[in-house]
């Protein structure tokens, strides 16, 4: 990519109003080309050029976009529980509105009180306390005594809180500091207007402040980097589209899910095609996450925040831990910030290797599992608790393998790649990393909750040439 952010003439142009207008217009056009909401450039530009009012623009823009998106409340889940409980006549919109107020009130109260609560042992680990509270409320909702209206209210509260849970965890970490940001500001970056998933892209106010452009020159560079990233994403989208056409249409390689379903139905594709589908799935997955994660980061950069890339050269990773770090940066950060560090700082302090392995395990296995169980909490309401837990078995096995792999990767002593040559130092380790994550995917395909660990194990053995 041309280094437009390093060209003095372009940098100077990007600091003039005509240059800014051109930059924002090109950015909007690229977003539209990507099929993304181009209107996000309006709050992003307002935030970027608002100067000292930037931190007033962010909560206002976020609130506006949240209102338009219905605060990401899972109203289908609320309707389903109301139907299951035989509760008619409850206006879903009013229920959702009431729950939004309840969640905002609860978050505000918790953030204000956290400076005192953090002195009490159960509150010292915000992610654990929040996860336990969330799962506890879900269990309460599933008890017989909660039948009827209490169950509907509890599930509605959970459905409304869920999109903000990990933002709240970051905010609580900040709230324990000696001079935490204002609560309104903290709430203003819960699902910021530049986009996020359940995983916060940009973490929290303090983190964003570290990455904020401090002057016109920095802002111009940050925005030019945003533009460069978006052009790169357009190229990646073209690659993804070409890959799909060549692999599926021209070569007749099935989607991975289809290969798996055919195996279960007793009409397996050849092993070669199954391997090809697995490799293709890996490539499509890496391209997809680079695209949607990159769009979010580019929008944040347009708004004036030099956020690090979400996916950065994952195929160059020569170790499992390096791939994990490069593949989905903000999710990895979430697990590291909320599960790795707290474990690492507390346990096995005198056993270097055990300490590292245990903390890695706490993040990649337990934290990972907990995150996904909470993300898919609606399945508990849909399938019942026991079936939802049973359906998690394959994913639990996946996280176990992942954590073991990452833990061992962490413990290995690394030597400089240059000492080993290209083949041993680069090509073979990269291939090994890709094969590991391809194999792992067999246990974590999108059909996650529908098929047992046994069925996935049988397919895995089939790939290895063992017929069961």
């Amino acid at each position, binding site marked *: 990519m041309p280094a437009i952010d390093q060209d003095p003439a372009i940098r100077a142009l990007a600091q003039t109003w005509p240059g800014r207008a051109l930059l924002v217009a090109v950015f909007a056009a690229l977003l539209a080309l990507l099929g993304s909401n181009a209107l996000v450039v309006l709050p992003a530009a307002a935030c970027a050029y608002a100067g000292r009012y930037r931190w007033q623009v962010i909560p206002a823009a976020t609130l506006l976009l949240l209102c338009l998106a219905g605060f990401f409340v899972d109203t289908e889940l609320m309707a389903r529980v109301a139907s299951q409980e035989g509760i008619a006549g409850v206006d879903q919109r009013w229920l959702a509105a009431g729950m939004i107020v309840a969640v905002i009130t609860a978050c505000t109260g918790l953030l204000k009180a956290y400076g005192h609560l953090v002195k009490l042992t159960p509150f010292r680990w915000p992610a654990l306390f929040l996860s336990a509270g969330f799962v506890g409320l879900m269990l309460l909702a599933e008890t017989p005594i909660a039948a009827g209206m209490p169950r509907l209210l509890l599930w509605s509260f959970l459905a409304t809180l869920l999109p903000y849970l990990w933002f709240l965890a970051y905010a609580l970490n900040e709230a*324990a*500091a000696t001079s935490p940001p204002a609560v309104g500001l903290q709430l203003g970056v819960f699902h910021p207007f530049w986009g996020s998933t359940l995983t916060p892209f940009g973490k929290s106010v*303090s983190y964003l402040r*570290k*990455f904020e452009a401090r002057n016109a020159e920095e802002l111009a560079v940050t925005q030019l980097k945003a533009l460069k990233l978006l052009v790169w994403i357009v190229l990646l989208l073209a690659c993804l589209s070409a890959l799909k056409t060549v692999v599926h249409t021209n070569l007749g390689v099935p989607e991975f899910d289809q290969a798996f379903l055919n195996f279960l139905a007793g009409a397996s594709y050849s092993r070669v095609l199954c391997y090809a589908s697995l490799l293709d799935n890996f490539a499509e997955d890496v391209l997809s996450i680079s695209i949607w994660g990159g769009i979010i980061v580019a929008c944040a950069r347009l708004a004036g925040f030099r956020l*690090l890339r979400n996916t950065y050269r994952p195929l160059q990773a020569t170790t499992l*831990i390096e791939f994990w*770090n490069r593949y989905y940066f903000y999710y*990895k*950060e979430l697990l*590291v*910030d909320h599960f*790795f*560090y707290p474990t*690492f*700082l*507390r346990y096995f*302090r005198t056993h*270097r290797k055990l*300490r*590292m392995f245990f*903390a890695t395990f706490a993040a990649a296995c337990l934290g990972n599992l907990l995150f996904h169980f909470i993300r898919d909490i609606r399945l508990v309401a849909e399938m019942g608790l026991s079936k939802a837990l049973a359906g998690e078995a394959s994913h639990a096995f996946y996280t176990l393998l992942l954590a073991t792999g990452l833990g061992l990767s*962490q413990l290995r002593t*690394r030597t*400089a*790649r240059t000492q080993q040559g290209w083949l041993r130092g680069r090509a073979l380790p990269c291939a090994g990393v890709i094969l590991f994550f391809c194999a792992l995917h067999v246990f974590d395909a999108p059909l996650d909750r529908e098929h047992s660990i046994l069925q996935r194990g049988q397919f895995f053995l089939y790939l290895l040439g063992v017929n069961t």
Partner: protein
Amino acid sequence: MSNDVRSRMRGYIRQRLDMKGDTNPLRDDDLLFSSGRLDSLDAIEIVMTVEIDHGINFADINFDLTRLDSIDAIADLIERHAVSV
């Protein structure tokens, strides 16, 4: 002590940057984590090194990555909290 600490940390961080293929110059006030040159996994290695070499318990001093964000910051943290080991 400060110069010695800085020199050792500089060498250690230089080594980690080299392993990542980052051969850019390293100054004591360069941001390490905010700039993306090092990541949270590198932070763990630095934490362990500081704990072992200087007897600092990060659980006691309210761990925050910003306190390790430059060689200057690390040296400052060590000067404030180091105990005899």
